Every structure is written in structure tokens, then in C-alpha cells.
């Protein structure tokens, strides 16, 4: 499945939010990738997420493939929309 999202928090996908997102993504079995401007990276890696330098309001897509894809999609969308507060 594919989920279209936008970065909601003001400071963008900095170290802390990238860490939170990667940690959450790693909890799922599914293969989870993030696509930004044609670049595809693993959403389970804090380094990969940080290197994308996603800014406030910037759109991105999560491609999720695996047995728990639906739950993963819902959980990660909520996390992004909640500005990475857990």
C-alpha cells in the first residue's frame, strides 16, 4: 500500500523526529520505504530519513509491503500527523 503524507512539525524531519519514525517503522514486519522526489530509502533507518532533509510541509510517500501493512500505514500516518509525539 501507499500512503501520501506531509511533514507537519515546524522544524522538519530532524534527528529527533527521524529517530522516532525509524524506531516505530522498525516495529513492523512489513518492508517500509519512503519516497521523496524520486529517491527511495528505508523508513526504518534514521540515517536514511535524516539524509532526505524533509522540511515543514514537504510531501512524501510511504510504500508499505507486508503482512502488517495496514496497521503500519495507520500507525505511521498518525505519528506523522501528530508531529512525532508519542
Amino acid at each position: 500500500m501507499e500512503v501520501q503524507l506531509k511533514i507537519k512539525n515546524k522544524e522538519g524531519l530532524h534527528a529527533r523526529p527521524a529517530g522516532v519514525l525509524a524506531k516505530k517503522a522498525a516495529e513492523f514486519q512489513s518492508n517500509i520505504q519512503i519516497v521523496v522526489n524520486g529517491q527511495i530509502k528505508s523508513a526504518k533507518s534514521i540515517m536514511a530519513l535524516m539524509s532526505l532533509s524533509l522540511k515543514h510541509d514537504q510531501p512524501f510517500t510511504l510504500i508499505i509491503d507486508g503482512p502488517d501493512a495496514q496497521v503500519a500505514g495507520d500507525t505511521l500516518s498518525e505519528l506523522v500527523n501528530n508531529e512525532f509525539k508519542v
Partner: protein
Amino acid sequence: MLELVRQTQHPYRPLTQGSGVSKGIAVGKAWVFDPSVHQHAEVKSQGVEIELTRFRQAQRKVLAKIEALVQKTKAEVGEEESQIFEAHFMILQDEELIGPILFAIEQEHLSSESAIEKSFRLQIQIFETSDSDYMRERALDLKDLKTQLLDILNPSEKPGLSKLLAPIILVAEDLTPSQTMTMDRKNVLAIITEKGGQTSHTAIIARTLGIPAVTGVPRATTMFSKHDQIALDGEEGSLFLLNDLEMKKYFTDRAVLQYTDKQKVQLLRGKPTLTKDAHMISLYANIGSEKDLDAVEKGDAEGIGLFRTEFLFMERKTAPTLEDQLRVYKTVLNKLAPKEVVIRTLDVGGDKPIPYIKIEKEDNPFLGVRALRYCLKDIELFKTQIKAMLFANEKANLSIMVPMVSRATEMKQVKEVVDTCVAELEKDPRYKKKPFKLGAMVEIPALIFELAEIKKYVSFVSVGTNDLLQYSVAADRMNPELQNIYNPFNLGFIRMMNLLAQQAIAARLELGICGELGGIQEFIPLWIGMGYQKLSMIPSEVLGRRSLVSKFSFERCRKLLAEVLKAKHETDVKLKLTDFIQKGEKTT
């Protein structure tokens, strides 16, 4: 820009200047820190198994160090600064970084050192070429981690920052977060770096620890030799080479003087806040959770002027129960007793959605159903919060404050809800009724004209300056395009604050400010002149502001007010207020 030699208040020519990021004057020997480690390129693999073990061990050790740093930083600096180390913790286990290291050891038969160098080099390059300043700064974090790994593989004989033999002024190209946190603080008199700015970790940590610091000094590490005596002013960012005794004496005197100034401020601890001519006001602290209580004690606040309760409601799926809230309110009320604690009822709106708070999507959340407006629609939630406060009020030091009040009739409704809560609680034998106060926040301009009516229901009002300014000039304070309109020196706003004070005093309401402007030093004399009695601010600033207030008289504040009210332009207001503070400092 940085080459420009700016003004200095000292009678000597600075050798150079950078940005002053942590104030204070320091005098001492320059000590240039050289973080470079041995060259590892030539190290040969001792065999795949051995290298894998060496790498895993080094990784484990660094992870343990980072974990300790997270705790240390949380305790000594703060939650937010500790998060960078939490990110380090994850980075050092990240597949993107560790995968290539393991591959290089296993498949390319490289030593751990070479494998680390290789994988980090690639990642550092990605960060360094990013178009975001923030990401480029993170390259430094990667170098930090790399150095830590290599240091464990080949312990260096070089003197480190964690053990210094004598007090020094630390000069470095740049400092990593872990270096700043683990340096031998009692021997670091001041910090000078070539890189970094106001928001670098070095700057933030130096400010928190009270160590004078100047960053952005080009060529600092080559400018000084090891035993140069230097002085620096961490406020203006200037550096001086002390080449004669007279100059050294001048700066040493200044350094000692500031120390006694700090001590003088400490003498005001536990004392009331008085102007020179003994006009008394109260300085309170604003807090966002019970975690801020230590800072309140350190700052010596005379009470809590605003306890924001939103944190209890955020980041959860259901509303907090009476017990959840009671525990927190009780901690704060009892810790502060007999000092007053003003707890604000829930202040949320459609701009920050909370799952169980049902606010319809609105075009203008700041003009929509928020704060009190929502609470009056969700009476059960409101009553639970008020009951928790009343229950927690064992020492009779509670004040309940309601945000976003636009008309007196709303306070009538609130008063009825509060009365119902008291009546219902009185049926519970565990509840002992104690006196408490009820008040309203003034954030909506129209309320200023209903203060006489509101007096029937409340005993105090407190001004939320940020929102009052935003609503009175109809400019979003976050919008950079409107900074000239959202301007606290605005003539209309200043006159409105004065009218508000007159109305509140005429209605015999206790009057305070709990917005950001309550603590800004330029405005304090003005608020005192207008008759505001209670100013609430960031906890750590209270003691310093008490010292400030003691430097001028109420009479001079009144004169300042008269002059400001006659000003023809906002820049004129700004000038008068800044001037007053500077002169006030000099007359002491």
C-alpha cells in the same frame, strides 16, 4: 561580516570578535584542543572474526557511553538537549551505517578502523553536501561518533577534555555535543570555537552551565599559542590578548566584579521584590508541568502565575481522569504552599487536535471554539478538571484561572460550574473545602471594557500579552510578514495595556501579567508604572528581575509611562524603554 571589528565597551582594542553566545567575562590561559586521532589507514585486518569482535565491542562500549550521556544531559541540561544523544544511539545501530562496516570487514577484509573510516566517510559526505544547514551541522555528530569508536579501538595518549590539569580557556575548531557534555567543567573558564552559532549545542550548553562562550571566531585555533593569556567578553563576543599587566588587571577586576554581582543577586533570595522607593510587586513563574518546579525554586519565584495544564491532556487517547490530574495538581500546590499557584484550565483549540477533544474543523481555529469556549461545551471534562484542582487544594493556595474569556456572562457561567463542583464535592467526606480564588485571563480586547461586570465573579485578572496583542492588531504572531504589525512597542497596544490597568484598578481586581511580555526587562518598568502588581515569567529569570526592579524607583516608572504615552512612534517607545534600562543600570 565576522572580520568586522565591532564596538566594545572595554577600553582596549579586541584582537578579534566572534558571536557572543554565553555572557560573562573570563581571564585565563588559552588551551588549544586538537581532537585529531592517530592515522588508521595503515591498520591491517587481524582476520575477519577478530575484527568483527573488535568492532562489536567498540560499538557496545560507545552505546553504553551514549546512554550514560542521555541521562546526564537530561538531568543537567534538559530533555530537549538530551534528544541529540538519543539520536546518536540510534545512528550507531543503523543499518545504513553499520551494514557497510560489517560488509567491509567480512568481504573486503578491512580492519575495523578502515571499515569505520570508509562507511562514515560516505555518510558524512551525504550530510555535508545537504542544502540544509541543520543537516550539515549533523555531519559533526557523525564525526563525533566515529572519533568515539576509533578512540576505543586505539586509546589515545593525548590529553582529552574530560581531564584537564589546570583552569583554561578552551579554544577549539568546534566541539561535539559529547565533548561539551563530558569536558572537565571546573577547569573550563570559557569556550572559544571557530564554528557554531547562537543555536549550536556548544552555545546552548554553555549558557545552561553559565560558562562564557564566543563562537564563530575564524582561525581561533591558530591565533593563540599555548600559554597566551587572554580575556573574553561572552556578551559582545570580543577576545583580547593580555600583553601587559594593566590590561590583565582591568579584565581580572571585571571578572571578579561580575562574580560579586552574581552573589549580590543571590542576596535577594527569599526577599520581597521592591523598587528603590519600596513599591512592592510580586514576581511569579510560568510553568508547563511539575518538572519545572526545580527551576522555580532556583529562580526564587514568589508563586506560580501560570500553570499550563495542556501537557496532561496531550499525547493520549482518552481524557485524563480526576485522579490523574489530582496527583499533579497536588504535587505543585503542596510543594509551593503557602505561595499562590494559579492553575489555568484547559487551553486547546482546533489548531492542535487532541483525539478525544471534539472540535469541528474550522477555518480560523484561533477565532474558533477554543479554551473556555470548548470547556463550556464539554462540561463534564471541565468539571473533572475543576474538581481535581479543588480536591488538590489542601493548603488553601489555589487560584483557578480561565483562558479566552470574551464576555462577563461567560465568567458567570464558569462561577456556576465551579459552585456546582464545590456542592458536589462536599458530599464526599474526603473533601475539605479550603478557600481558593477565581480569575480570568484578559486576552480578548473587548473584555477590557467589561472588567467592572466581571468583578462580580472573579477576584483577579491576568493578561495574556501574546494573544491580547495578536487579537488587538489582528496579526498572527507566527507570520514573519507581519512582524512590524505584531510589535509589542505598538502605540495602540501600549495604550491599551494602560487602559486595562486603569479599568482593573478601578474595579478593584488583582492585576497581573502572565504572558511573555511580563518578563521582558525593557517592559518591566512600564508595567510597574501602569500599576501591574504581579508579573509572571520564565522561572529562571525571577531573581535577576528582582535585582533589576531594585535599581529604579516607582516614581521614575511613572515618569517613564507618561513619556511613553506621549510618544509619536513605536520606535520612539522602543528607544525610551531600552534607554531607561541602560541608564537604570548605570545609576547604581
